[in-house]
């Protein structure tokens, strides 16, 4: 197996991008990543996307994008794993380069969620759940997360206000990211007063529906110096994925993200690191409860104590374990199938020293974790900046 490096990154702003089509979004991010890497062609394109078929009536998305980009003749395929589609595509791209089956691979994540009515988009998101035993009973994605949050608060006797530091931190960090959807701070008081959408979850616990695309260029690490513009080379030190039961109700302990535990611990072993070595963590804050469950399953906090990392300030840019350093899903935005690629891209920005006002003082080892559904697919990557 060969070491794999990321030598190019590109992204579109995240938001309600009514003037950009699905193919245009993909084009813009991919062209930016190709320019950053200094390439004109690639061997393969893997596209993370969840909802193009459901919301745009367009499947066969990777072939469409390759065609639109003038890359006829290359290999291209769409990778779908619900909201974890982006990181799943990155993992497929990593396998292609590591195995030697391809040398220059583009990994993109693309999602267009705002052309449809909110009810249609919500129904699309519910496709990630079990259609016969969750959705047919009236469950929504939001409702499943709300039930996890309520049980967590009950089991560990934690007030709703204890979750405030997560969206507060995400919104604060998004102000330094020109590509983020939101650029306004929220206060803990505003968090507690936000309208409840599925009790106990309120609007400020939930990531927004939006559009966006991000792309990465992967090459064998030993050839990395041939590409790019002399920026720090970022190596994919670990790529790991695991699945859990599709339905929340089938988990022995729904408050433990088994797939997060498995994929993160596989990743630690592959990279030869422990949780204490991780300088910062781009986690999957689709809902506040997911941040906390992810921190606990990945070994950053004892069970029931994940909220303490918020209260102590450990998750802020100057804390012990900065998270969502460029806004996270909550405030950069969560264009579902693109999110995993945005997360990895933002880790690269930090490792390169290109994170602008949000640049961390110490960024050598970064982790990204992308969660599909309510925890059924969880993909973890650890990236290291080469000296």
């Amino acid at each position, binding site marked *: 197996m060969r070491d794999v490096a990321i030598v190019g990154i590109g992204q579109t702003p995240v938001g309600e991008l009514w003037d950009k089509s699905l193919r245009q979004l993909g084009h813009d991010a991919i062209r930016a990543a190709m320019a950053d890497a200094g390439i004109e062609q690639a061997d393969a394109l893997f596209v993370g996307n969840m909802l193009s078929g459901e919301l745009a009536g367009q499947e066969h998305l990777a072939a469409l994008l390759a065609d639109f980009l003038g890359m006829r003749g290359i290999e291209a395929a769409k990778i779908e794993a619900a909201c974890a589609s982006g990181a799943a595509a990155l993992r497929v791209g990593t396998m292609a380069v590591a195995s030697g089956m391809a040398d220059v691979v583009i990994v993109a994540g693309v999602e267009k969620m705002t052309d449809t009515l909110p*009810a249609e988009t*919500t*129904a699309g998101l*519910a496709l990630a759940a079990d*259609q*016969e*035993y*969750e*959705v*047919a*009973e*009236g*469950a*929504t994605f*939001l*409702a*499943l997360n*709300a*039930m*996890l949050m*309520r*049980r967590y608060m*009950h089991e560990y006797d934690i007030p709703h206000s204890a979750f405030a530091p997560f969206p507060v931190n995400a919104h604060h960090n998004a102000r330094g990211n020109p590509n983020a959807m939101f650029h306004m701070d929220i206060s803990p008081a505003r968090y507690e007063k936000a309208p409840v*959408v*599925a*009790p*106990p*979850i309120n609007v400020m616990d939930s990531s927004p529906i939006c559009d966006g695309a991000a792309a990465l260029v992967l090459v064998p690490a030993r050839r990395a110096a041939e590409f790019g513009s002399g920026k720090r080379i970022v190596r994919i030190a670990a790529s790991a994925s695991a699945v859990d*039961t599709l*339905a*929340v*109700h*089938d988990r022995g302990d*729904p408050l433990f993200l088994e797939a997060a535990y498995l994929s993160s611990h596989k990743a630690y072993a592959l990279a030869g690191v422990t949780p204490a070595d991780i300088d910062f963590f781009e986690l999957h804050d689709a809902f506040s409860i997911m941040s906390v469950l992810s921190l606990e399953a990945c070994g950053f906090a004892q069970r029931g104590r994940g909220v303490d990392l918020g209260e102590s300030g450990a998750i802020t840019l100057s804390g012990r374990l900065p998270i969502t350093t460029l806004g996270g899903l909550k405030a950069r935005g969560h264009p579902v199938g693109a999110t995993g690629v945005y997360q990895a891209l933002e880790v690269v920005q930090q490792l390169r020293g290109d994170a602008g006002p949000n640049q961390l003082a110490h960024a050598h080892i970064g982790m990204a974790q992308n969660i599909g559904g309510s925890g059924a697919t969880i993909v973890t990557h650890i990236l290291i900046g080469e000296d």
Partner: protein
Amino acid sequence: MHIARNWRVKKQRYSLHGEICHHCGAKVFPPRDICPECAKPAYDPLQLSGQGEVYSHTTVYDAPAGFQHQAPYALALVRLEEGPMLTAQLTDVDPKEVHIGMPVEMVTRKLSVEGDEGLIQYGYKFRPRMMARAA
């Protein structure tokens, strides 16, 4: 969902037909061909009692298509007394009265109304347990 797709799950949806694994004794709902506990291909039919308690719950205000006429409604994760958990609506109760640990029992109700032809899906919901149970 199409008619055949609903017809195939009618036993579990109308009367909580589950399975018991004859390798490890795990009680399983909904039915599947591989035991989720021991991963062996083992399944004998098991009629679940329909008695359980609320593990967690929420209220759905923003209901998906087919459920809008019922909104807002209480949704719960119900732990059946045999062990398996399932997702179901709560009925015959004010959502504000629901609490974790609340004893509930299964009833068959209209789940959703689908599409232009108004195809009606029936299935399980849970309501607060009505009667004191014999020990």
